[in-house]
């Protein structure tokens, strides 16, 4: 039975041998710890993700990072360089969807076709196919830390390759890279895979190399109530800490109501730190990442830039440590370097302008923080209870029973009964709870809030609210008001 327990070094190293055999690039000599550890120790502090984030947290500033990745190696390097020129404090390498499904043969074909077509046929950078040689080349050609961003249920080989290549951050987690990103992979499998990924980082930490880990906060990016995503973040932080991870960035995808968004980031930081402390994980450095609007974007590029900049205001005022930017092409397709740069420049300008400001303390903010925290506590309790004290078992059973349930997720291991809807001020509330592990008093609050809106709009409470809300932002509204 899979438990939340640190993998022994022996188990880890044994598994590692198999992992490295999954694709030919796994046999690269630099994957030997005797080479990768000294290599990672030699990189300057300014290119270490974990260190740069810790400093940003101390300085109270919000750093920016885009999403980006193309199939061909040199094009990818060019792309990242142009994003740094535009002002990116960190660069990503967004991994293509074949690699995410470990379909390296198709990824190989994608690289070849891209070379022929002179445009990327893949939606990301196939890091495993490019191997340590390619990934190191990327790392050595850029001036800021690199992170892999993907959505991979089994990212073990990918993680080995990127870390050995000097990439000091890795996004994902056993829940957050499964439930929104897979259909029929069990949580047991992904949590096990991600224990390995975390254990790898823990191994590096044990050997004097600090590496950042970032659970994926936004989940499906679509009307996710903060209590659900924050709970998943805290769980993944605990799971990572158990495997020896020390530097964790918990994330949140903008919901659209300013007060709720700022409350969510503040609650997320406070509760992650307090849960880690409560469960005995010491010397942890927790930072936060705010994702600019993750749902459907407006097609108009000026409107999209407006949304990007508005997201930046909220991120800066929330004092999130990092912000993931979008581009004016978001609704259409993977952005050109130029469009991506526009998103970075607008974002960077805004966070810079706001760096000395904060969102004032207020009753409204305090109440929303308290609301989110009590919801998260209830969900965490329910998970631990159903897992008989073990977090991994708790997660597996909680999802089985719908105690944890992510709206709009494709996974068949997710109950899919929860339906969100906005209240009359645009806070994301819960319309249908399914079996979500929340007490009656909290449910009553959500229901009352949604009722307020429905009465204002003079219409029934139904799934139509949810549908209208899903489509609203792309059409220039936050709340999908019924047609009058």
């Amino acid at each position, binding site marked *: 039975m899979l438990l939340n327990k640190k993998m022994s070094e022996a188990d880890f190293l044994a598994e590692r041998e198999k992992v490295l055999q999954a694709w030919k690039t796994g046999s690269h000599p630099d994957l030997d710890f005797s080479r990768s550890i000294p290599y990672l120790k030699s990189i300057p502090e300014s290119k270490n993700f974990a260190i740069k984030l810790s400093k940003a947290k101390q300085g109270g500033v919000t750093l920016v990072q885009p999403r980006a990745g193309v199939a061909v190696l040199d094009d990818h390097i060019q792309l990242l360089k142009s994003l740094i020129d535009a002002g990116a404090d960190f660069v990503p390498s967004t991994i293509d969807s074949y690699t995410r499904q470990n379909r390296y043969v198709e990824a190989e074909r994608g690289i070849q076709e891209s070379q022929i077509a002179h*445009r990327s*046929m893949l939606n990301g950078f196939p890091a495993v196919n490019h191997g340590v040689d390619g990934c190191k080349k990327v790392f050595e050609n850029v001036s800021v830390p690199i992170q892999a961003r993907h959505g991979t249920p089994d990212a073990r080989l990918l993680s080995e390759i990127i870390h050995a290549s000097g990439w000091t951050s890795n996004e994902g987690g056993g829940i957050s890279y499964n439930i929104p990103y*897979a259909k029929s992979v069990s949580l047991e499998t992904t949590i096990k895979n991600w224990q390995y990924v975390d254990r790898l980082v823990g191994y590096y930490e044990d050997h004097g190399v600090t590496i950042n880990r970032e659970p994926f906060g936004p989940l*499906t990016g679509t009307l996710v109530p903060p209590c659900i995503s924050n709970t998943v973040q805290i769980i993944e932080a605990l799971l990572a800490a158990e495997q020896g991870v020390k530097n964790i960035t918990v994330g949140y995808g903008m919901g659209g109501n300013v007060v709720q968004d700022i409350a969510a980031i503040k609650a997320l930081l406070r509760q992650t730190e307090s849960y880690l402390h409560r469960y005995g994980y010491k010397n942890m450095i927790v930072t936060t990442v705010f994702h600019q609007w993750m749902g459907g974007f407006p097609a108009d590029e000026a409107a999209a830039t407006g949304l990007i900049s508005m997201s930046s205001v909220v991120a800066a005022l929330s004092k999130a440590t990092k912000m993931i930017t979008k581009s004016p092409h978001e609704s*259409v397709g993977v952005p050109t370097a130029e469009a991506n740069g526009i998103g970075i420049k607008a974002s960077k300008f805004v966070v810079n302008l706001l760096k000395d400001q904060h969102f004032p303390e207020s009753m409204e903010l305090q109440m929303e923080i308290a609301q989110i925290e009590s919801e998260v506590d209830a969900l965490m309790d329910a998970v631990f209870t159903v897992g008989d004290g073990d977090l991994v078992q708790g997660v597996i059973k909680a999802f089985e029973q719908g105690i944890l349930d992510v709206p709009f997720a494709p996974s068949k291991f997710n109950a899919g009964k929860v339906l969100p809807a906005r209240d009359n001020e645009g806070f994301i509330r819960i319309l249908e709870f399914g079996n979500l592990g929340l007490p009656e008093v909290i449910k009553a609050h959500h229901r009352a809030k949604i009722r307020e809106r429905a009465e204002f709009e003079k219409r029934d409470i139904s799934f139509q609210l949810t549908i209208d809300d899903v489509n609203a932002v792309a059409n220039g509204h936050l709340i999908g008001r019924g047609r009058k």
Partner: protein
Amino acid sequence: MKSIVIGVIGADVHAVGNKIIDYTLTNAGYNVINIGVLSSQEDFINAAIEADAELILVSSLYGHGEIDCRGMRQKCIESGIGDIFLYVGGNIVVGKQDFSEVKQRFLQMGFNRVYPPGISIDMALNDIKNDLGE
């Protein structure tokens, strides 16, 4: 009631639009067979044969649509449903490309209708009505 198979092709997990399409077509009076995300060409075709569907509505959001959709008409023919309607929509190629060219590429692959990004399913209801009759 006419049957329509819907789903998201390839290694694509974008599930939100799929749920909305399901809801909308069902509300519009069709028998919807939703094979969900991460579906192969074969999954679509088998479902269509089983339900005796008149339309396969392929969604592709993540950009690999071009690779994933190739040869689908051929496979339909081989499976004996060569004249089924094939629609495709979403964000079907990587990046912002000239749509008239993109459309040509997919029409040549044998799709009957090809939709650009930002077309919601409501806007396609008329086409469906026209093609399937009544």
